[in-house]
């Protein structure tokens, strides 16, 4: 909703509503509610939010190595000499790095693609951080590339594309296992997941 449509709102308030409306999932009504909530916030809290937005825009950069979001490049993971430098795990988004780090079972390095091949949305390989990945692989002694894209059609297509691009290299290329989630019921599992789970069965 533009400021012309809410003539009773002050210009500064209209501007805030317009800016909030640009956020994903925020419609005109939600933007108005958030704006009035922010006005009622204590000054310290409102300024802390404004400062946090300013700081993140000024300080966050992409790590020159892994392309993850960081305050300092190279990031804390890439500059940690205790991590296994031979294994690189490719993920779609920075949030995937957080999810994998929470598992504490991977001690190698990451590479963030910042997206996934999505032809229906006009996103092709050239929009991803793939050139940076290839450059990284050619320069260092990486032994294994773990492709940890989501188990979606786009994620699988991206994994296949990377594998095809790196065909002929001596790199060991793996991807995360597909199968049943913890707590999942066979009855409600789709056939593709079930067949992948069967293919990946392990000896007890």
């Amino acid at each position, binding site marked *: 909703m533009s400021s012309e449509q809410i003539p009773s709102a002050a210009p500064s308030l209209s501007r805030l509503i317009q800016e909030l409306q640009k956020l994903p*999932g925020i419609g005109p009504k939600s933007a108005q509610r958030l704006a009035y909530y922010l006005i009622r916030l204590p000054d310290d809290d409102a300024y802390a939010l404004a400062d946090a937005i300013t700081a993140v825009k000024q300080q966050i950069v992409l790590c020159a190595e892994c392309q993850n979001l960081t305050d300092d490049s190279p990031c804390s993971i890439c500059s940690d000499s205790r991590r296994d430098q031979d294994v690189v795990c490719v993920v779609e988004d920075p949030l995937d790095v957080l999810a994998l780090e929470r598992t504490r079972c991977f001690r190698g390095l990451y590479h963030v693609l910042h997206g996934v*091949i999505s*032809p*229906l*949305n*006009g996103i*092709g*390989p050239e929009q991803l951080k793939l050139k940076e990945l290839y450059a990284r692989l050619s320069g260092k002694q990486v032994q294994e590339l773990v492709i940890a894209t989501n188990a*979606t*059609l786009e994620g*699988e*297509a991206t994994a*296949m*594309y990377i594998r*095809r*691009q790196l065909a002929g290299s001596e790199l060991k290329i793996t991807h995360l296992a597909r199968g049943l*989630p*913890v*707590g*999942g*019921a066979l009855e*409600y*599992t*789709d*056939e*593709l*997941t079930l*067949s992948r789970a069967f293919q990946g069965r392990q000896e007890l």
Partner: protein
Amino acid sequence: MAPPRAYQCEAVTLKKFPLGEADLLVTLYTRERGKVRALARGARRSNSKLMGHFEPLTQVKLSLAQGRDLDHVVQAQVVSGFALLKGDLGAIAKGLYVAELVDGFGSESNPNQPLYRLVIEALHAIEAAPESDLPLRFFELHLLQVSGLMPELYRCVECRQTLTPGRHRFSPNLGGALCLDCNPTDARLRPLSLRTLKVLRLLHRTPIAELPALSMDAALARELKALLSTTIQYWLDKEIRSNSFLEHVHHVAGTEV
């Protein structure tokens, strides 16, 4: 009397879009109701019984409940996940191209069972022969047919005379082949060789499962592809986004389109 709130249908998923914390907004092409946009609540949660059922290019049986703006998915069962298709990058690119065209040509609340059958047949044909471009060409031509836009392949669209072999051109905007004697001012003319015309007629009259393994040289394949995609583009009147990835995959594979 108001229509029943819940209904069953069979559908193929064309695309999905994450919504909110864990929901999916899915675009389906249903056999019973044409294109339907529906909300699958919680379908992105790993313990959701709907998870994995709405990947693009999945054929599903559904129970849906009519909502005020969007229908809601109540139950889903996979009929075919097209697992082999999804294991081949080129086939995925082709499948997504099919999905985009169906999304463009299909309309909401307007069932078109021949179109539904065509999509399923085309996906099975792509799965069976991922290296061949013929299933895509078949799909494009028959998509035009089931949408009521079948190009004329036997007579001149202007003078209605039967075409003389070798003396013809093609006009996407006038709806098919033109003889050399007719020169309408508004025709966007393209070359139409006799070989291409014969392949088009073969594609038109042969069921997809009985298509012979044609060995087309690069020039013929290019002309056929260009003619059909120009016609599709003319009627769709918007950019086909998946086309560039399809071209890219072909280029990487080093195959001639």
